[in-house]
């Protein structure tokens, strides 16, 4: 049987563009820049083996986002603030050794998302369709918040959502669930779309940002699998060691998991 899709992120649904800033970087680009820069920086710093390329790319975007000024745009005489915005797409997949109904149910309860999506601080369901999302920007740079709505929902099969207009980070996503062959559990396919800044600098930025964002989505899915299969997230970072003891980070999210095993 062919599954009829009302909405498909891959074909029809784009994030709703918003943004009106009049510095040389549009506000959407600016927010994404700050947001992604902070994420990249955070991501690079928290790795055991520091990823310097990510760090510097992250730092650059953070600067760009916070200042509203891009030396690169200036240099090439471009102003992206009033151009049409393209969107970028990431798709990642993982197999979870659990029945499809369980996997779907855990994801559909949106307030579970921050337990495995590392950059999310909270997701609060407002009604059956709408939810309020808060992402913490690390290093004390505050939070970014937006509302999202579920556009389509097929139980145990598919969820499509989109940030509502005027979201600070315009994004849309689709996640679908299917049985893995040979009784190996459930395949989760996630497709995330987000607004990328337009223009020359935007392209450069996107090519920098995309792989890291892809990796982030992948890591989120991996944590989702960890959590569903074992009820906990593997952690070694918070552990004791010699010499480096002083620069150990606090266990952060892991403690929450400890207090609330899933299964």
């Amino acid at each position, binding site marked *: 049987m062919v599954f009829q899709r009302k909405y498909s992120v891959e074909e029809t649904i784009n994030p709703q563009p918003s943004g009106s800033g009049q510095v040389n970087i549009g506000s959407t680009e600016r927010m994404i820049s700050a947001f992604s820069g902070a994420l990249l920086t955070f991501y690079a710093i928290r790795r*055991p*083996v520091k990823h310097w390329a990510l760090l510097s790319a992250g730092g650059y975007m953070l600067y760009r986002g916070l200042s509203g000024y891009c030396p690169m745009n200036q240099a090439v005489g471009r102003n992206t603030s009033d151009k049409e915005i393209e969107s970028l797409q990431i798709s990642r997949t993982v*197999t979870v*050794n659990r029945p499809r109904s369980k996997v779907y149910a855990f994801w559909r309860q949106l307030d579970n998302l921050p337990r495995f999506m590392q950059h999310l601080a909270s997701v609060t369901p407002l009604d059956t369709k709408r939810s309020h999302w808060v992402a913490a920007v690390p290093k004390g740079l505050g939070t970014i918040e937006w509302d999202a709505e579920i556009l389509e929902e097929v139980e145990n099969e598919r969820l499509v959502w989109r940030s509502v207009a005027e979201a600070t980070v315009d994004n849309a996503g689709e996640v679908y669930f299917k049985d893995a062959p040979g009784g*190996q*559990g459930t395949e989760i396919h996630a497709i995330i779309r987000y607004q990328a800044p337009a223009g020359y600098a935007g392209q450069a930025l996107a090519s920098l940002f995309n792989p890291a964002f892809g*990796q982030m989505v*992948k*890591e989120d899915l*991996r944590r989702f*699998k*960890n959590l569903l*299969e*074992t*009820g*906990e*997230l*593997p*952690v*070694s*970072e*918070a*552990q*004791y*060691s*010699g*010499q*480096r*003891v002083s620069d150990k980070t606090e*266990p952060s999210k*892991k403690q929450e*998991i*400890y207090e609330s*095993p899933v299964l």
Partner: protein
Amino acid sequence: MRALCYNGIRDLRVENVPDPGIINPHDAIIRVTLSSVCGSDLHLINGYVPTVQSGDILGHEFIGEVVETGPQVKKLKKGDRVVVASVIACGECQHCQEQSFSLCDNTNPNAYIAEKMFGDSGAAIFGYSHAFGGYAGSHAEYIRVPFAEKGCFVIPEGIADDSAVFCSDAFPTGFMAADMADIKPGQVVAVWGCGGVGQMAIQSARLLGAERVIAIDGHEERLRTAQMIGGATDILNYKKVNIQDALKELTGGRGPDVCIDAVGMEAFGEGIGYYYDRAKQYVRLENDRPVVLREAIMACRKGGTVSIVGVYSGFADKIPMGAAMNKALTFKMGQMHAQRYIPRLLEYVRDGKVDPSYLITHRVGLEQGQQAYDLFYESRDHCMRAVFVP
């Protein structure tokens, strides 16, 4: 607590570090009573592993006493004397449920590093670099054991600590080498390497019915041990004889049915270029290592099996694929699935069929850590295995 920490190449120091605590619900804290050196540690200590950081606590083969358990740990209690699997496995993922514990999906928080190196990540291993999870190792007074119910096995009464400790890593590794080769009664097995793992592979091959086991090494006293205690029927010193000729001679011109590589060639890294260079550099530095695999392939009987448990981590040069293909060889390999084998091995030990305690040649405190590894590395003073009593 005191712990033996990596401080740089061949520079291990005892440092005071905070005691480990329960982090996840399936954790347990173990007070370590014996912790063994292992050949694979050498490549971390010798600086071939870029994801080893100063401060890391080494060690993955150990026994101890349960001192604390997380809320989801029901089957262990304080005071239990346990042997702990060196690989960390969740017991819930597809691979764990197929008993392939070293392929566990859920225990390596740094899976992305291993993914870059190998295309996917296996289970984490205690004290074995950040690519393999970044978990603190066992050369310490205490250790945190994730998924403790899956990895800790209560040691039956009557088994001494010295015998139990090798059921953590060396014995299951040697046993798996023989087990995955599917040895049939009457077969001839050749084992390269007579260190801890090789010794255990020799004994395991005998246990599984091999009629003859040929032990190969360059150290006379290890060969003698393999013969006197391990039960090897023949011994070959590669420094004295041509292995290919000698193996043909011993097998009526056929070659061994099963060739076990218990030596390996270890080089870690990130990125193809790194591996390639390191591997090559390593070959120059430590001659003979990759030779084992080539030699095993060349010596193996037509239609035979090459079983690899010596660790390979990067790229190996000039593997004779022509020989492997045209002789229709079967390759079996992998990090060992400790949790699959430990209960069975403890029975062998309890029943007196194998007693691995003879591997211990040196017993030292953590303070002698670097010296112990130096002895072990250079095989001086007949060092087979040194164990730490933290």
